[in-house]
């Protein structure tokens, strides 16, 4: 139990470090949009999502309607539904409804990515640990960013913004190198995403991600059915 929680926390450390820099940027942004430090941190601890929060602060600053806020979050964050659905298939039988209602809050891109490549079924203590360290990083980074304002030189924050993408690449490249099927899914998805950007520049990035990922996964699944569980690790 305790060991699983600790293992989850440890796996969350790289995510925490990445979140620190991103949420630092969010903190700065929130202050620029005339929100208080309390409001900035309040948004981060209740939402735990980067793109959605940035867009949400935009809606608040523009005095938009609540319907606009809901639609905006729905479009940008709909990918989480896909991730939750995928993750629901990896949960251990000890994952009862109350645990799901709590842990569901913490499904982010990075937490999902790390959790879904674990070879064994996901237990509640593991997932709680994996959510806790990034959550602290997210809240802490927002607080620091909002409190410090813009003290870091711009070229340092710009370079730090690559961290999360570097982490994504580190997650997808090694399995793609070993498995042609995964490589196909990854390459198709990247290609479609680039096409969306070039051909449909007005499409929101959230929608582009959903479209590309679903299409790439459908095509790959039609050509290569995935291995049964236990038959080679994901």
């Amino acid at each position, binding site marked *: 139990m305790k060991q699983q929680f600790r293992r989850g926390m440890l796996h969350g450390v790289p995510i925490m470090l*990445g979140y620190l820099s991103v949420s630092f940027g969010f903190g700065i942004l929130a202050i620029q949009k005339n929100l208080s430090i309390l*409001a900035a941190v309040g948004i981060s601890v209740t939402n735990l999502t980067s793109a959605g929060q940035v867009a949400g602060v935009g809606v608040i600053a523009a005095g938009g309607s609540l319907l606009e806020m809901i639609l905006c979050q729905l479009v940008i964050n709909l990918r989480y539904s896909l991730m939750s659905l995928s993750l629901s298939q990896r949960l251990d039988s000890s994952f009862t409804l109350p645990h799901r209602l709590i842990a569901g809050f913490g499904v982010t891109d990075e937490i999902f990515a790390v959790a879904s490549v674990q070879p064994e079924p996901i237990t509640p203590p593991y997932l709680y640990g994996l959510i806790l360290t990034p959550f602290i990083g997210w809240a802490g980074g927002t607080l620091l960013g909002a409190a410090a304002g813009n003290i870091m030189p711009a070229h340092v924050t710009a370079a730090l913004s690559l961290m999360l993408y570097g982490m994504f690449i580190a997650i997808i490249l090694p399995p793609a190198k070993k498995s042609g099927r995964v490589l196909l899914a990854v390459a198709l998805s990247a290609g479609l995403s680039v096409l969306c950007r070039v051909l449909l520049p007005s499409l929101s990035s959230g929608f582009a991600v959903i479209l590309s990922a679903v299409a790439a996964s459908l095509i790959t699944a039609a050509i290569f059915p995935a291995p049964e569980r236990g038959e080679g690790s994901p």
Partner: protein
Amino acid sequence: MSLVVYIAVMAVTTYLIRVIPFAAVRGRIRSRFINSVLYYIPYAVLSAMTFPAVFYATGDVVTSSVGTAAALIMAFFDLPLIVVALSSSAAAFIAGCLIGIIG
């Protein structure tokens, strides 16, 4: 409109998006095809989020591309996540400094 209302609406929407599939899908999905799609989704989502966004991440295509190349090389050799992430940032930072010196 009160700020608290905005934040609450934002938080509840985001929470429901995440928790509904998580809580509602209790059993194992038996369809081989759906399982295959769900197997590829994590990789496909991360890939679509990374490309092409990674090339604009620093606000400059050249330094972003240098950082991306560093990440690809490090990841190819199976280095830990944090090493890949930090070297990607470091490469972009150094590239930015070099461009500053030359330009």
